């Protein structure tokens, strides 16, 4: 096949290397302006975020405060993009029948170890999701880890039987996210406003960050169900 296509095009001409060098020189010329090492540190956005994050959101983890509190609308859009991809995958790949038995026998070790490993996946995902405002992690990571449980079951030969329940859970959680965000307009004065009061005296405990853990649980469930449905769509086979 490759003989018909002619000889290999590996490194084509010295001009390309020259362009790479020119591009690299331009890159390093403008890099200090982008990275802002010359700007005064107290004028950077990150510094004021660090100052405002504990007082406004009550979360010790500044990254979580930015993702869920300052940029909560963006996160809603991001979860919507994931939902769009899952829906598009269902349209592209979901034509085939979901075969109930796998075409090859699953690995013996996987089939026996799944009951042993399964609770640990769930517990780790749940812990990382709930403690997203205290420790590194959050809804995305915990949701993917908890969905790893379902991916392991699919690898071990099981199939998703109640796909409608999965889609219903996904839609319900997405609607709850939007509902909590909109009800913030009435009860707290702004979109995604803090319905639950922040306890500043209990800074760094589990119930101190207002609606951030609630929103992160919603995000975790939504991301997990979407990843299960994406992977399940990849496992479908076209009917011959």
């Amino acid at each position, binding site marked *: 096949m490759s003989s018909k*296509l002619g000889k290999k095009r590996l490194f084509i001409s010295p001009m390309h290397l020259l362009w790479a060098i020119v591009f690299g020189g331009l*890159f390093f010329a403008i890099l200090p302006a982008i990275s802002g090492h010359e700007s005064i540190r107290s004028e950077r956005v990150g510094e004021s975020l660090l100052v405002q994050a504990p007082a406004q959101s009550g979360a010790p983890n500044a990254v979580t405060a930015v993702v869920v509190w300052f940029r909560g609308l963006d996160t809603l859009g991001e979860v919507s993009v994931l939902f769009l991809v899952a829906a598009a995958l269902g349209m592209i790949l979901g034509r085939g029948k979901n075969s109930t038995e796998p075409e090859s026998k699953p690995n013996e070790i996987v089939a026996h170890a799944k009951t042993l490993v399964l609770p640990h996946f769930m517990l780790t995902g749940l812990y990382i999701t709930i403690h997203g405002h*205290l420790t590194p992690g959050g809804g995305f990571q915990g949701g993917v880890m908890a969905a790893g449980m379902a991916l392991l079951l699919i690898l071990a030969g099981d199939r998703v039987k109640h796909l409608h329940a999965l889609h219903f859970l996904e839609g319900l959680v997405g609607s709850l996210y939007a509902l909590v965000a909109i009800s913030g307009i009435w009860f707290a004065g702004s979109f995604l406003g803090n319905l639950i009061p922040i306890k500043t005296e209990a800074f760094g405990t589990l119930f101190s960050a207002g609606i951030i853990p609630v929103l992160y649980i919603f995000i975790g469930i939504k991301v997990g169900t979407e990843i299960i449905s994406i992977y399940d769509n990849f496992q479908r086979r076209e009917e011959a």
Partner: protein
Amino acid sequence: MNLSLETVLPAFSLMLILLGLWGVATRKNLIKIFISLSIAETGVNLLYISMTGFVHGKVPILADPTVTSGYVDPLPHAMILTSIVIGTAVTALGLALTARYHERTGTLNVTKMKELKN
């Protein structure tokens, strides 16, 4: 010239980005093209995180709400967190289209795609 991680990482990220773009331009297999695109995306993520001033800073998890200096910049972390998830979604969508195309035509070679030529 002092050789610290903060000075080496931008050059390394640029190398990964250029390597990925070169792979996108010269490979012929669709799956190879998506792998190259993901490598370029990893380079972009490393470039953003390398700008946070991480040599003299601490992990941005505050122990005391009144002490807010001495931490790294949390803004690139939040942006790259979004970027990784969206990149994964884009890769999954592209690979699904690739698998579907292969079921239709039986090839993954981009030089053999004749559907849009007239």
